[in-house]
């Protein structure tokens, strides 16, 4: 390299270089600000719009054509039913798959690699495609119709990849020395998993399950496909009951022309965000309180 190639304006300590560095940092801070400011604007917009309508009617009343009397009770109960049932189905299956992939599967075998690639791809399939699967397969072909169980099965398939991925991370975090000690004491592979690995991984698994279910709570598109967008003025009374859920009720109110319903939609959004916040706070609490660093 000859001396002519060196740009003296950009030499260390030069003024031009300091200015460039500062300008770049300013751009980076602006990038961060775009996310933070939008988050702030969104929350302020929702809460100020909802404010006049944030009272018990949102929780106690059922949907109605009159915005004054309308509330989201059937949607809240529907969300609890659908997401509760999703958890009951999704957590054991996801955990089983995670234990298999982490503890038993030989990564060199082609079918295990296929499963792995497949889970990664499924995690990124659009939720509306799961809705199409729910409509064509679960709702129509299997005949579950427009029910709580059809919604839960659809959401189970949707969040299963997330559940598997997070449970695997929790299991992987348990150090191999614990497994080796248990095996050295004469325990079988299954006893080691059952009595050592899983108990040690419980906080991580619980956190992952909550995060997977909080994804399920916010989903509207797949449930619209299986007919969740109906006027439901009663709470579900079982897995085969008709249902609506909060995100769909919110969508329904947003699409109406009257401003009163927009306000009501904002109030229901506040309810939805509070539920999500409580779930995430629980997840963080679990992780900080029971989570162990090895």
């Amino acid at each position, binding site marked *: 390299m000859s001396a002519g190639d060196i740009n003296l304006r*950009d030499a*260390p300590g030069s003024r031009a270089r300091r200015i460039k560095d500062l300008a*770049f940092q300013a751009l*980076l*801070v*602006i*990038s*961060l600000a*775009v*996310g*933070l400011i*939008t*988050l702030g604007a969104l929350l302020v*917009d*929702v809460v100020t*719009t909802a404010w006049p309508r944030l009272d018990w009617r949102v929780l106690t009343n059922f949907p109605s054509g009159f915005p004054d009397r309308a509330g989201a009770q059937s949607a809240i109960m529907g969300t609890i039913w659908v997401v509760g049932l999703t958890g009951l189905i999704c957590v054991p299956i*996801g955990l*089983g*798959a995670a234990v*298999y992939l982490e503890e*038993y*599967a030989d990564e060199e075998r082609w079918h295990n690699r*296929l*499963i792995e*690639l*497949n*889970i*990664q*791809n*499924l995690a*990124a*399939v*659009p*939720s*509306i*495609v799961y*809705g*199409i*699967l729910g409509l*064509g*397969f679960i709702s*129509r072909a299997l005949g579950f119709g427009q029910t709580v169980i059809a919604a839960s099965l659809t959401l189970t398939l949707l969040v299963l*990849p997330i559940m598997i991925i997070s449970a695997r991370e929790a299991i992987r975090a348990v150090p191999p020395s614990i497994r080796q000690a248990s095996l050295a004491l004469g325990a079988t592979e299954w006893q080691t998993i059952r009595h050592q690995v899983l108990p040690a991984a419980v906080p991580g698994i619980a956190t992952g399950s909550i995060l997977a279910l909080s994804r399920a*709570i*916010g989903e*509207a*598109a797949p449930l619209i*496909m299986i*007919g969740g967008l109906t006027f439901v003025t009663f709470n579900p009374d079982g897995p085969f009951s008709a249902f609506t859920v909060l*995100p769909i009720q*919110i*969508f329904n109110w*947003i*699409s109406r022309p009257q401003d009163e319903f*927009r306000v009501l939609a904002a109030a229901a*959004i506040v309810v*939805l*965000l509070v539920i*999500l916040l409580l779930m*995430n706070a629980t997840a963080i609490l679990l992780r900080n309180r029971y989570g162990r660093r090895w």
Partner: protein
Amino acid sequence: MRTLMFLCALLSVGTTIAILIALAVPTLEFFGEVSLREFFTTSDWSPLFEPPGFGVLPLISATIVTTFWALVVCVPFGLGTAILLSEYASPRARSILKPVIELLAGIPTVVYGFFALTYVTPLLREHWPIGDPPSTFNALSAGLVMGVMILPIVASLSEDAMTAVPDSLRAGAAALGGSRLQVATRVVVPAALSGIVASFVLAISRALGETMIVLIAAGSAPQLTGDPREAMQTMTAFIASAGIGDQSTGSIGYKTIFAVGSTLFVATMVMNLFSIRLVRRFREVYE
């Protein structure tokens, strides 16, 4: 027990097969009635009216327009956030800022739709600088808000890729007299490039498949235009609004949902597999 758990893992493959079959059968029936040529080359989309038109181009163009505006937001600002967090922020600042940015990914999409329709669109209409302001339903507002929703994906994955670049490279560049700016843009970003590109590809995939924001804020008028101020209907928005209409099984309207769904599924799957490959590449280099 082992077999049972293997079956759990196999269920994921079963899901993919179920998706493929559920999509393929009605799609093939659809193309028995409508030619591939009409579907992909004509631009009149009115499958539920008489006489029906089955040109999917308006839906595809609307999907591309909204995705483009989402990328305009999430690529530069997501990457900027990632560089800030990985190269400039103290560990303490990073541990606070990263979860806050990731909160954006946890907000339900229907809430973003509400925000786009009731806040961003009025804002754009009031302060539009030149020409006609956007209409009440428009692709621009939906796309921009979608970009913010996807921003954490780009920020988070790019940051992971940059953190995986060994410190010895940074130290080497600094020892040669590189400034922080030069280290970040000429050493770290190129070294993490495959991971960064993977995050962009995944962002495209998310934007193509996003439904609620475009359904709420971009409108339901299928028209072939590149003007983001206009209302348009994306593939996902069509699928959802046809789903709301409760089509009877076997009708042409019902099959149309699956034909559009297949198009969307293929597009996103190509993106996903591409991005998974890219991520593997950067992991292999540095781990």
